[in-house]
């Protein structure tokens, strides 16, 4: 009986000792500065050699760890090495890991406010996964949020050119072309979407509305420029838009989508359209 009691007491004592020492070690680790575990994570190219054909599962493990690590807001300087972990480690281990590209880019752009670093990672992903429209699509959105509309249009164009990209990508591309002022290109894209039998009904409705509005804007721009030329040559605004056609300032008078002439204020020389008002000066 006594040996058994002694044994239990000994077990209890060593268990308690292990518990206390573990708590003390955790406190020590919390007090230490820096994040040494990140410092020693080598490049994925080297880890791939060590993985002996299991690089994918190693990439998964580091990716899962990185998610927990970078979402811990209590960690000091947690944003250090984020480009290394996602760009040099995870995506080198598994170059086809699409999730790692976009999540790493999202952390860099949203948390670190470093658009260029995020785009570098996405561009690396695009180069290695040319069949994945999602990566240029996300890069485009990040550029859009960063008010880099021309770059966004370029990425949307890239995404739209990838087989399997949904119609929404083409819609975004057309919208972005409008945003950067390439109205003719935007109009051609919207017309293409409206006429494509593969487009869904909602996309066709949106495309037709945009075609109408863009056509109106382009017509108003042409008419307004003709009015201005008329004023410079005649020293007055035309009394009506028909004078522009008669004076060969325009080859033919364009009509609004309702079949009527565009609105014209002879006193101020302003041409306007209801559709143009809806679209605004985007």
């Amino acid at each position, binding site marked *: 009986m006594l040996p058994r009691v002694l044994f239990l007491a000994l077990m209890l004592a060593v268990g308690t000792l292990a518990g206390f020492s573990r708590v003390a070690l955790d406190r020590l680790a919390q007090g230490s500065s820096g994040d040494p575990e990140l410092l020693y994570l080598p490049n994925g190219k080297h880890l791939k050699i060590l993985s002996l054909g299991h690089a994918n*599962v190693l990439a998964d493990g580091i990716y899962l760890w990185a998610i927990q690590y970078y979402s811990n807001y209590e960690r000091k300087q947690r944003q250090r090495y984020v480009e290394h972990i996602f760009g040099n480690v995870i995506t080198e281990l*598994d170059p086809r890991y699409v999730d790692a590209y976009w*999540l790493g880019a999202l952390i860099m752009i949203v948390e670190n406010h470093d658009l260029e670093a995020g785009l570098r990672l996405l561009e690396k992903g695009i180069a290695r996964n040319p069949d994945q429209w999602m990566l240029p699509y996300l890069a485009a959105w990040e550029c859009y949020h960063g008010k880099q509309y021309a770059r966004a249009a370029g990425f949307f164009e890239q995404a739209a050119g990838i087989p399997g990209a949904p119609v929404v990508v083409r819609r975004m591309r057309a919208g972005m072309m409008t945003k950067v002022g390439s109205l003719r290109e935007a109009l051609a894209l919207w017309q293409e979407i409206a006429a494509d039998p593969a487009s869904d009904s909602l996309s066709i409705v949106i495309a037709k509305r945009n075609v109408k509005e863009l056509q109106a804007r382009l017509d108003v721009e042409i008419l307004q420029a003709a009015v201005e030329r008329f004023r410079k040559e005649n020293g007055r605004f035309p009394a009506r838009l028909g004078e522009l056609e008669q004076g060969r300032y325009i080859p033919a008078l364009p009509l609004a989508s309702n079949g009527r002439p565009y609105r014209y204020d002879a006193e101020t020389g302003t041409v306007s359209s209801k559709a143009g008002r809806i679209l605004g000066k985007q």
Partner: protein
Amino acid sequence: MSIPSATTAVGAIALNTFREAIRDRILYLLLVFALGLIGVSRLLSMLTVGNEEKIIKDIGLSAISLFGVLAAVFVGVSLVFKEIERRTVYTLLATPVRRWHFVTGKFVGLLLVLGMIVGLMSAALCGLLLLRGEAPWALFPAIALILVELVVVTAFALLFSSLTNPILAALMTFAIYVMGHLTWSLQLLKGQLEGGLAVGLVDFLYYAMPNLERLNLKAEVVHGLPLEPGSVTLGVVYGLSYAVLVLGLACLVFERKEFN
């Protein structure tokens, strides 16, 4: 006593090896660990952001491969040694059974065991994916080549088991597994050499060592990439012919082995 045909002798030894191996506790331990890991992959996938199925497939395929190799090594290296240690091999070889029948029977028996555990692990992985509404069929080429890789590893385990004690045989088989996944580095080494005998030696090593990376399609099937035409068939032909070559060596070694 009539001499049994090769098929009868090999078949009888294979069946006996299979029965013996499935009684091995280490096999059950490995199987439980592997099935546990495949189950846990579902929990791990919940921690991810993005494609959960990728994590399940990656862990599942790696578990099948790693635990298969562990089973091939630990069970394989002890099969011949046990027979010698227990002296049952003397009784067996006293009958009209040829020594190569014995080695081949052991090999086939172990392959049956490995086929069974790979089948169970694959069924668990496929079941998990089917429960999530994901079709697992695209994984089959990778699983087939994992099995071929295990055939090669088993042949080496048996060869080393005929040569030395189980611990050394296990270490040597693991070394072959590691080298088999790093043979590509010999090509890098060749690039650094100026030519002559050294290049010839590196080339010889490159083709003499098994290239197990050629049997690794895990990344391709998980990402749904198109497989090179003929890559699976060629992989199967390469792996099986290589394994037969190693098995032949094992038979040769066992033929010349002296039992004192």
